[in-house]
Structure formats: C-alpha cells, structure tokens
C-alpha cells in the first residue's frame, strides 16, 4: 500500500510477540489513542530482529524504525533481548557514519502490561520522526540526479576520503 497520505510518515515497528506486541494490544484494549504512522511487524522475540531488517527498511525509505522487546530479564526465551540489546545498540551507534540520522531508529522495552508506556513510546517516537521530516531517499529519485551523481564521481577520480588529508 505505497500510496500514503502526505501527512503520514512511514514508521516500521518490530515487536516481540510476548511483551511489546502484547503491550500494543493492551494499549489498544484500553483505547489509548496513538498516531497512525506506525505499522507493526510481529516477530517471536527481539532476538529474532536482525539489525539488517532495520537497515533494509531505512534504505528502502522508511522514515523511522522502532524496535521493542521484553524488558531485560523478562524475555520469554530467557536471553533473546540480551542479544538484541547488543546488536541494536551497535546499529544505533553505527548509523551516524552512514549519514542516516540515528534518531530515525530507536529500540526500547515495553512489557505486555505497559499499555500506557507503549502509547507514550509510539507518540514520542512519531513526534520525533515528524520533527525530522521525511527521510531522504538513498537512491536518486530522477534520471537527472542519477547522472549528476555519476558525473560527480567521474570528476573526482581517485577521491578517496582517506587520502585527502
């Protein structure tokens, strides 16, 4: 469903089935109003979330990616979120070198009972993404841009950033 209302931005959520997906359900059951931008992908555990899913989403043009799992120590599978925490932290720290604003990606912990917290997380994250605005596309959008890129490179020759200074 690519066609989107222009007021809405594209936010992808990866939620573990046992805690955060349940937390989002709890928020729904309690009718906690939330912005509609977020679309949730359900995975069994935050340990199933490959940081590359996040990268894939961002390179595909997602404006924001939110990951949420069980609180540390509360993982349904005992250890999944411990691995997730390391993997996702490294991704978050790595993003700046790519020029992708690391604020577009966030990970957090929400338990199945924390409906209110889920509402807060979604609202805050959506607000943050709207502040950042739509993400720039990594691929050039038009033919003209494409040629500009190519020309630019051709003129640079051996323009390795490491040898510049």
């Amino acid at each position: 469903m690519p066609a989107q209302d222009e007021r809405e931005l594209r936010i992808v959520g990866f939620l573990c089935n046992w805690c955060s997906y349940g937390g989002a359900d709890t928020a729904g059951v309690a009718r906690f109003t939330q912005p509609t931008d977020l679309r949730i992908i359900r995975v069994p555990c935050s340990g199933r979330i490959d940081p590359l899913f996040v990268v894939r989403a961002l390179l595909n043009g997602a404006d924001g990616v939110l990951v949420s799992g069980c609180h540390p120590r509360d993982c349904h599978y005992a250890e999944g979120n411990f691995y997730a925490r390391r993997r996702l932290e490294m991704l978050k720290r790595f993003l700046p070198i790519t020029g992708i604003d690391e604020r577009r990606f966030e990970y957090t912990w929400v338990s199945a009972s924390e409906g209110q917290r889920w509402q807060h997380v979604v609202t805050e994250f959506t607000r943050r993404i709207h502040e950042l605005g739509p993400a720039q596309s990594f691929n050039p959008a038009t033919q003209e841009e494409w040629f500009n890129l190519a020309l630019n490179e051709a003129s640079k020759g051996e323009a390795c950033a490491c040898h510049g200074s």
Partner: protein
Amino acid sequence: MRIGVFICHCGSNIAGTVDCESVAELASGFPEVVYSTDSMYTCSEPGQEGIITAIHEQKLDGVVVASCTPRMHEPTFRRAVERAGLNRYMFEMANIREHVSWIGKDKEHNTNKAADLVLMAVEKLRRNRPLVPKSFETIKRVLVIGGGVAGIQAALDCADGGLDVVMVERDQSIGGKMAKLDKTFPTIDCSSCVLGPKMVDIAQHEKITLHTCAEIEAVSGYVGNFSVTIRRRATYVDWTKCTGCGVCTEKCPSKRSPDVFNEFMGTTTAINIPFPQAIPKKAAINPATCTMIQKGKCGVCAKVCPVGCIDYEQQDELINVDVGAIVVATGYDLFDWHKYPQYGEGRYPDVITSLQYERLLSASGPTGGHIKRPSDGKEPKNVVFIQCVGSRDRSVDRPYCSGFCCMYTAKQAILTKDHIPDSQSYVFYMDIRAPGKGYDEFTRRAMEEYGAQYVRGRVAMIYPHGEQLMVRGADTLAGTQVEVPADLVVLATGVEAAQGAVKLGETLRVVPDQYGFFVESHPKLKPVETNTAGVYLAGACQGPKDIPTSVGQGSAAAAKALGLLSKERLESDPAVSKVNLSRCVGCQKCIGTCPFGAIKAITDRQGKLKAEVIETVCQGCGICTVTCPQGAIQLEHFTDNQILAEVNALCPPKMNASFE
C-alpha cells in the same frame, strides 16, 4: 497461490473507525489475492463457515483474516482453515482492531493503515509453507521440586492420578513453612494435625519417591522428556538403615548446632531429627558443628546407634531421573528484617519474627508452647505486632504486599490472649488485607473478642527502656505519635522469593521476576503454567500465597501435569528453526547463542561440520537465525524472507525506475 482475504467488522469495534469494505476492495488487488470479502464477526460460527466455504469454492490455498490481535484468535482461525483442509500455517492475521481501530478515530488514516497491514499479511503468506508437527513419546513421571504444602498436594494428586512422582526437598524433612506453624487461620486448626497425615501419605505412597537434603543440579531435555540430575547432600547417616529411634540425638555431646527448624530460637544437637513428625524420620549430621567431622574426635553417635547407620565418610550423591513434567513448588523465604536498623538489627533479643513467634506458640517448640520471651524467659504482658516489615516498602525494594501477614498477625494476637489472658496485644498496621472466606470476620474477632488494639501506622523505632522495649509509632487515625512499652515485639516479616530461586530458574529456564518469584505464563489464564512447556508452578514460588491458595495451586499444577501426560504422544510446534545444510558452513555460532541447547553439531557425509536443530527442544525464538551470517538456519514461519517481505511491503524498495 490463491489467497483469500477476510476483513472483520467486529461489530462496530473495527467498522466504526475503519472502512472495512474499502479495505476488502483494496485487498482484492493485492498479489495473488483471488477472493476478498468483509464480514460482521469473522470469528463467529457463520464467519468461520464463510472462510471454510470460500476455501472450498475458491480453491484457496492461503487465508488472511484482518480482525483482532493474533494473540486472541489465531488458534481459532488456524483450526478453521485446518477444518477446510489447509495446513494451519497457511494462514496469516492482520491486527486491525487493537492496532488500528481502537487507537485512532481518523477513518481515512485507519483504513489506509488497515490495508497496509493486510498487504503485509498477504506478502508474508505468499512465503509461508505448510509445516507439520512432529510427535514424540512422553515419560509418565513427574518431578516435584519442594516439599512444602503446595508440593505435597501436587505430588499426592499426581500419584493418585497414576503418575510416578519424584519429590525433591532441600531441607531434611518435608513440610515446609506450614510444618513450623502452630495454628492456622481463620479456623485455629492445629497446623501439624492437618499437614501431618499428608506428609505421611507422601512417605507411604507407592508411586512417590522422596529425596530430602537434595537439590536440583541440572535439567536438560524438553516437555515430556526431561532429564534431571539431583544432588543429594551427605547426611552422614545411612538412611536405608536408620530407624529414627533418636538415641543418637539424645547422646550427641555437641549441643550448639543452630536449630533451623525452630527458626534459631535455641540450639540443637549436631546429629538431629528436626521435629517429631519429620518425614522422613531420619537423623542427619550437621557437618559444621559435628566434632567428629570437624576435628576427628567424638564418634558418640556411631557408638550408640543400634543399627550402625552412622557413616562419617558419606559423600554427596548424584541421582539421575527422567521425567515428563516438572512442578516447581519451592515456596518462599522471610525478608531479612535486619535491613531496618531502627528495629535494632538484632541487638534486642525480644524483637523476633512472626515465624519465631509461631515456634514459641507451638507445643513442639523450644518453650513447649509457653510464650516466654527470649531475653529472660519471662511471660510478656504487652505484645506489640508490627506489620509490613519488608512489605509495601520501596525503600527496601519490597513494594509488594506479602498477602497473608495481616491474617497470621490477627491469629497470633488471638493466640496470645489464649495463652496469656492478662496480656494486651497492639498491632501496628497500614491496611488490613483480609479478602478470603471468613478472613475479615476473623480480624474483627481479634479486635472485638480478644481486645487486640489495632493502631493504624508504622513504627519508627524500637529502643530499650528498662526491661521493656519502647515502641514508638504513629496512630494516623488519631493523628498523633504513640508509644507502647512492650515486653515482646513480633515483626510480621514479609515474603521473599526462596533463596536460590533465581539459580533454579536458570536451570529450569523459568524466568523469575525482579524479586525472584517465577513468572507464570499468563497472569489470568495460565497461572500455573510457565513459558517453558511442561514446567508448572505451585505455591508461593510464584508470589506470596496463603495455605489454601497454595494447596489449590498444587492441585492445579498436578491437573496440568496429568493432562499433559495423559497423552501417549505430544506434538511439537513446527515453527522452529531449521538448518539448510548446504548453506551451513559449520561455524557453530548458533550453537553458542541458543539459550535452550537446541542446536547440536553433526558431521555430514563428507565429514563436514554442520548444525542440526533438535526440533522438540527448540522454542522458536530465532536468536540463531540472526546469529548465522549465511542465513543458513531459518526460523520457520518467521524466516528472513517472510519478514523481509513484510518490510518490503511497507517500504517498497526504490528501483532505478527512472531508467526504464
């Protein structure tokens, strides 16, 4: 593929803020969707029939239902598609109620979002494949960990139901906390008269094997097929010979052993049978205080034992047993009240815990059932009870209510009056929590019939005042400070997770909460199940509980175990990881990260190392799939391709369309 999409109105729950008809119409344009419709209540009987009919008529081989959360009705719809002859994994759900209609009112946005979620489900479904569970045999034996009242009940129910039971108890005797109690509320029944016969049943039941002085060393395997190692501590007494005659305990010259059973109110002998009704009634030596074991001198017990069962060289023993299910009933411990320096940190002997007071009240206790205060053996007249010591107190990280202290305090106030008619009890409380049958009436009796003075407020400090203890507290109802010169102060110490619970949790793969209580599978609907299949909880190991609740849970856990093992064979969830052997390079990283030991290394025909998943052990978390750089191990039903399909559905990759 031929996919059918069903959009549920859920009455007005969804249709109120989502244009379900448009969603259905949009969905008809999604890839491989050949049938798309909307219905009022998809989960209802006619709704399910509608799906089944459509599967038959439209020759569907995959179904998407957009309705409520899959945590609610996924099993329902899976059964429905299965009835129509589809594999239950050829089904996907889009959650357009909890995640859409209930959280926003903007119909246009909601409709868009609902359509997106349906598209994601369709894209995922296109990559689903039928999965078939494997079946395996079960072992008709249950392990019960903990021999308190909850464990006893679970063991007896399982054994009566025809299962073999192995009971493991850390202490020398079963009976747990209840065996230490004098009377029970609200009926003032004698605790050991009620519990004693059940303890004897455990000893005599032909289907029950009891190991005391024993702990769980290791657990492996999976539901229906656990393999357990039990460590039995050396007791230095050959229990196959010991008759429990007690001669050794009479003659033992080392009389300064801490008396654990009597809550350290006094001392006992180094060789000891903890109490007259102990099960098993066997003697054991405390190696820390036995002079023979410590210094190699003495040997009196060996000399006097009529059956020659003393063995100073005895070693710990490891026992292996295979079981199909495990009941955890490890109970609780008491809060260490020394964390409150204002109550004297143990400097004042006449400040004791409620469980110590039980021992003073008990006819089998150190004072023979006469209330004598520890400092000088005098009978107290003013007895102060302080509630919530280590309960409902965030400053000591115990914010929870321990549940039953209000009740036993009322009981103890009543018993105090029974024992010492001219005594006066004062109870400092914050709120009286008495929600059980006959409970509130009981606390009222303590006040009305037995004259206990209930004072609403905490106690700030206790300090010695002559031969008495000055208790300074507040009466918040009167809005003032109050002081009571007390002869004895009894602290209603709160409930804590049993020592070692966290470690046991690791062994069993049962998650403890932040306070060390084991977490149940669902707080309402699965109160005795855990997230590890085949492991059940009973009693206070899950949270503070009084006796009837613990017994009820013991029976509930037994019912679960009986139900599980009543099946000859069990089916495993096929949504587990699977190794693509040709992609696997044998780096074994997945083996290291699997929390369940569900992956093992094998050698293929060419002699190359490969990974293999033990399907029955795998719990389906997918940690391995992310670990594997080649993507060789994939979690079925949540494969990389399935998740990527959802990502790509949401954020379609921008191709170089401009060149075309």
